[in-house]
């Protein structure tokens, strides 16, 4: 009974003790910058993916999503009331998305821009079902949280102009905890699903990923003659992902684990060419646990200086 009471108290403190809004401000800035980088990459081929005569035409991409979803063709229909062609509407939509991201980055009327950017990205997701992958899913999750969380409390013009209360509140704590727990669960799932596959244990999945033409960046077929390398890398991946849910709550281990996750995603970016995916995963981990890791490091440094002086 005492154990349950103590657990309840700890949980209560975990979700309610006010924490700094700095991580949420950093989260907003990093994700807004990510949206802008991704939009820059999209721009030259925007119509090839979202236009009426895209690689997957509207009639087909519409059929792939549920009826209540908002496909980009519906936006074009709305803009056509103002005399815009389909192509012009799709281009205008791109600029609305970009302006929204800039507003979010600056943090002026933050909530409005956050809702707009999330909604635009939702429409994009509904319009390119066959082309989306992890990067889009995690961006949608991040934008959903940014829309609801008090992300303007730090590093924003809203805070500077005193349009929002900058104090640490229960809302900040809850938001940060939800983001942290969601990431922990996502990594746990990723690690656990991998552990169920025999080919992850013997390194074959990693080797195949590195050599198949969709992802290969360098000729790494020679790794087949050194199977222990892909095997160890696979184990590292599984341990890093599955252990994330525990390690991120242990102060000293957190810094090491965060560095390991950054290494893992940098490796994915370099060796599989998934730069944007690697980047968003690093940004999410930094947003959720970066501030705590930074505090751990500062504390360790202070302790080290103190010991040196003694």
């Amino acid at each position: 009974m005492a154990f349950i009471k103590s657990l309840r108290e700890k949980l209560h403190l975990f979700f309610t003790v006010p924490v700094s809004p700095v991580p949420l401000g950093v989260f907003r800035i990093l994700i807004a910058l990510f949206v802008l980088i991704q939009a820059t990459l999209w721009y030259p081929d925007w119509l090839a993916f979202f236009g009426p005569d895209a690689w997957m035409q509207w009639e087909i991409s519409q059929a792939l999503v549920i009826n209540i979803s908002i496909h980009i063709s519906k936006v074009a229909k709305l803009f056509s009331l103002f005399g815009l062609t389909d192509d012009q509407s799709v281009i205008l939509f791109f600029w609305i998305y970009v302006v929204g991201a800039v507003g979010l980055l600056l943090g002026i009327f933050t909530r409005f821009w956050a809702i707009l950017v999330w909604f635009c990205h939702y429409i994009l997701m509904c319009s390119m079902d066959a082309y989306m992958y992890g990067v889009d899913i995690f961006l949608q999750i991040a934008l959903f949280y940014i829309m609801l969380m008090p992300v303007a409390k730090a590093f924003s013009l809203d805070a500077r102009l005193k349009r929002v209360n900058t104090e640490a509140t229960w809302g900040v704590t809850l938001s940060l905890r939800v983001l942290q727990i969601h990431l922990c669960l996502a990594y746990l799932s990723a690690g656990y699903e991998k552990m169920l596959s025999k080919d992850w244990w013997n390194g074959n999945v990693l080797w195949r990923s590195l050599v198949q033409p969709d992802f290969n960046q360098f000729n790494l077929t020679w790794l087949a003659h050194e199977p222990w390398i892909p095997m160890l890398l696979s184990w590292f991946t599984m341990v890093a992902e599955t252990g994330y849910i525990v390690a991120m709550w242990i102060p000293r281990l957190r810094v090491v684990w965060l560095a390991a996750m950054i290494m893992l995603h940098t490796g994915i970016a370099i060796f599989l060419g998934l730069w944007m995916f690697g980047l968003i995963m690093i940004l999410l981990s930094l947003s959720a646990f970066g501030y705590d890791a930074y505090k751990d490091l500062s504390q360790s440094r202070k302790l080290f200086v103190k010991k040196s002086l003694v």
Partner: protein
Amino acid sequence: MKRLIYALAFFHLLLISLTIFHALDKVYTLNAVVEKSFSFVCSLNYSVWRYGFFSPDVGRSNEIEIKTYDSQNHETKFSTLNGFNFFLSNADLGKRFYGFKVYNVADTSLQGLSARSVATRMMNIFPDVNKVTYTLRSIRYPTMKDYCKKKPVEILDIYTTTFTLPYR
């Protein structure tokens, strides 16, 4: 209000947990209304999603090969094995065709529609083209052990079709 927000946050995290541990698998396919509701929630925030990066089907790659022919029957070959670089401005967008190909292999009803869509786009890009051949292939890579024993990569044609514009 505070209690309601905490309850919603708890429900959201519970939904994520139940999904990743497959507790909702049967509920998801219970009936169309439930399935659509989950799909709708998923499209908003991906709380009903499993995050198994690279767990399924890695090693089973696919290729889409497109051959175009002009009025002199001159053949030009494009292949996703070359990263689709012939029309994309950057490599990051090329990665998106991985999902497209997986989708096409998994959903046979989509293959014809995708082929038609791609053929139309090729004919729009190259006005002198009057015939497009579209082939979807499965490529299975051997294990490291088999690769060392010189086992070849298995290549299998899954779907092929030809579109012709007789009056161009």
